[in-house]
C-alpha cells in the first residue's frame, strides 16, 4: 500500500507509453493472423459486428476510466445498462400509442438516461459524501438496480419500441452504425476535457492525490460525484444503443460488463492507483478486447472457456503493471 504513487510523473507516463505502445501492434498482429486462419473474419458483417461491439464497450469503458482515475471502481455499469434498457423500453411501450414515434423515442431516451444518471448520482453521493468504499457502494447499487430492472420486466423482454428508435440501432450512415459515431463523439469529447480543460486537470489531481487536491481547494467532492454520474450516464447511453439494436428492453443486458470495461481500461494503461488514464487509449483497449473475443468466437472456443481466458488475461495485465510500478519506486 505504501508503494503507491512514489513514481515520478514522467516515469509513470513512460510506463503508460510503454504499455500502450504494444497494443495497436497487438491488434494488427491478431487481425492479420485471424484473417489468415479464418477468412470469415474479413467478411463485412463480421467486421461490422466487431466494430459495433467495440464502440459500445468504448463508451462504457471511458466512463469506467473516469472512475478509475478518481481512485474508484464502478462495478454497477452492467446493472445500470439493464436498468436503462428496461426503463427506456417500458416508457416507450407505455407512450407508444398516444404520442408520435419521434416524441416517444425522445421520451424513452430521456427516461433511460435519467435512470442511469440517478444511479450515478447515488453512487457519487455514497462515495464522496458518505465516504463509503467505492466498490462496495457500486456492488450494492448493482444489486439494487439489477433487481429493479428484473422486477420491472419479470425477466421478460419488453417489445413494442417505435421504429424510429430501432432504426437508431440498426441503421447505418456512410456504412457505419450509430454506435460508432456515438463512441467517436464520447472519446473525442473526453480527450478534449482531459487535455484542455481545468475540469480534466482537477480530475487527475483528485485521483493522483485526493488529500493534496482538497488542501489546494479543488472541488474534490464535485469531481468525485461527477465521475460516477458520467460513468452511469455513459453506461445508459450504451444500453440505449444496444436496446435499439436488439429491438427490445432486456433485464439481463450488460452482463459481465464490469469485468470487460475494467479490462479494457487496465490494458490501456489506466492505473488502479488513480490519476492515470487517457480516453483514446481506452478506446484502443476496447477494440483489442472485442478483437480477442471475436478471435475466440471464430476459433470456436466455448464462451465458458472465454471467461477463463479473460479472467487470466486481466489479472496478468494488472500484475505486469504492478510489477512495473514496484520497479519504478524501488
Amino acid at each position, binding site marked *: 500500500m505504501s508503494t503507491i504513487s512514489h513514481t515520478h510523473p514522467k516515469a509513470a507516463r513512460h510506463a503508460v507509453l510503454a504499455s500502450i505502445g504494444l497494443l495497436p501492434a497487438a491488434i494488427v498482429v491478431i487481425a492479420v493472423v485471424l484473417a489468415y486462419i479464418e477468412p470469415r473474419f474479413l467478411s463485412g458483417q463480421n467486421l461490422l459486428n466487431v466494430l459495433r461491439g467495440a464502440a459500445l464497450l468504448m463508451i462504457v469503458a471511458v466512463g469506467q476510466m473516469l472512475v478509475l482515475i478518481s481512485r474508484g471502481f464502478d462495478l454497477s455499469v452492467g446493472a445500470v445498462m439493464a436498468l436503462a434498457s428496461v426503463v427506456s423500453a417500458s416508457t416507450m411501450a407505455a407512450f407508444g400509442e398516444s404520442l408520435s414515434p419521434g416524441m416517444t423515442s425522445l421520451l424513452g431516451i430521456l427516461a433511460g438516461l435519467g435512470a442511469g444518471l440517478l444511479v450515478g448520482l447515488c453512487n457519487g453521493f455514497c462515495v464522496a459524501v458518505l465516504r463509503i468504499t467505492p466498490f462496495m457502494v457500486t456492488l450494492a447499487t448493482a444489486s*439494487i438496480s439489477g433487481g429493479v430492472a428484473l422486477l420491472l420486466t419479470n425477466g421478460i423482454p419488453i417489445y413494442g419500441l417505435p421504429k424510429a428508435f430501432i432504426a437508431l440501432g440498426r441503421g447505418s450512415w456512410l456504412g457505419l452504425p450509430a454506435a460508432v459515431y456515438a463512441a467517436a463523439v464520447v472519446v473525442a469529447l473526453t480527450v478534449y476535457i482531459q487535455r484542455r480543460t481545468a475540469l480534466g486537470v482537477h480530475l487527475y489531481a483528485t485521483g493522483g492525490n485526493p488529500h493534496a487536491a482538497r488542501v489546494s481547494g479543488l472541488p474534490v467532492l464535485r469531481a468525485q460525484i461527477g465521475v460516477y454520474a458520467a460513468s452511469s450516464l455513459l453506461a445508459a447511453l450504451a444500453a440505449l444503443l444496444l436496446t435499439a439494436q436488439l429491438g427490445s428492453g432486456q433485464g439481463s443486458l450488460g452482463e459481465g460488463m464490469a469485468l470487460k470495461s475494467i479490462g479494457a481500461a487496465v490494458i490501456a494503461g489506466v492505473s488502479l492507483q488513480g490519476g492515470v488514464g487517457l480516453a483514446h487509449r481506452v478506446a484502443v483497449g476496447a477494440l483489442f478486447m472485442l478483437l480477442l473475443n471475436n478471435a475466440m468466437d471464430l476459433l470456436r472456443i466455448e464462451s465458458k472457456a472465454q471467461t477463463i481466458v479473460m479472467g487470466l488475461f486481466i489479472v496478468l495485465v494488472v500484475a505486469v503493471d*504492478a510489477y512495473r510500478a514496484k520497479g519504478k519506486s524501488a
Partner: protein
Amino acid sequence: MSTTPTSLSMASRPRRILDFLAHYLFWLLAPVLLLVLALVEPRIASSRNLLNLVTQSSYLAVFASAQMLVILIRGFDLSLGSTVSLISVLTALALTTGLAEAGLPTFWLIAAGVGVGLLAGASVGVFNGFCTAILRVNPFIVTLGSLGIAFGVASMASGGRPVFDLPEAFSEALYSGQVLGLSAPVWIALVLCLALQLMLSRTVFGRSLYLIGSNPRAAEVAGVPVARYVFITYVLASLVVAVGAMMLTGRTSSGEPNLGGSLLLPSIAAAVVGGISLQGGTGGVGNAVMGALFISVLSNGMNLIEVDGYLQDVILGLVILVALYLDRFRKYR
C-alpha cells in the same frame, strides 16, 4: 491506545449512543425483525422453522467467516460465489467417477470427494493469494479475475448441467445426519467457527492478521512476514469456502454449476452487517455469525411472506449500504 478510554469518556452522550448503535444496531434489530415477521406470519415462529433458520444460517455463517478473514487484512473476495460452484462440481464429479463401482468403501469414497473439494478450494486460494501477496495485484482485480476463471472451469467440467447420483452417505454426513438434535451443517459450522475464532485470538498468526489489517506498514516493520501471512489467509479463506460449498452440495445432493451464483452478496452483507470494518483490522467470527443470523432471518422472513426474489436483491443492496454507512460512526477500541 491509552488515550482511547479518556477520549471515550469525554465524548458527548449523543456521540456515545451513536457509537453504540453503530456497533450493535443490527444485533438489536435481529430479534426485533424476527418478532415483527412472526406477527405478520406466525409460521415464522414455529419451532420447525426456527430450527430450519439455524440450519440455513450455518451455511451463511461459514461463507461470511471466509469473507471476514480476507476483509480483516484489507482484502476482499469477489470470487466466493463461483468458487462454491467450482468446488461443488468437482466434488460431485470425484464422488461419481466410478470409484464406488471399483469397490472403494463408502468412507474412503467420501474422504476422496472431500479431499478433492478441499484441494479445489486450496487451488483457488493459492491463485488469489499468490497474485495478491506476491505479485501485489489489487485484490478486487484478482478475485474478479478468479471469479471468471472458476465460473468457466465449473461450467466446462460439468457441461453446464448438474452432476447427479451422489452417494447417499455424502448427503447424510454433511446434511441430514443428526447429533444431539442438531443437524450436521450446524455442527460443522459450529466446530469450524470455534476453530477459526481460536486461531484468530490465540495464535501468533491470528493476532498478526489484526496488525496487518490495521497497519500493514507497521506490521512489516515489526517483523511480521506480511506477504506470507496474506498468502496463507487467502488459502485459508478458500478452504473455509470449500467446506461451505460441500455442505451445500450435500444439501442439494448434486454438483451444481450455478450453486454459488447468488452467494457473494449475502456473504458480504453478513460480514458488514455483523460489524466487520472494510478498513481492515477489526472483527471476529462472532461478527460474521451474528451477521449471518440477521441476513438469514431477513431472507427467511421475506421468503415466507412471499417477497419477490428480485425485490429481495434490492433490499439486500440497501441493507449493505446502511451497514456501511454505520461503519463510519464506529470507534474501534
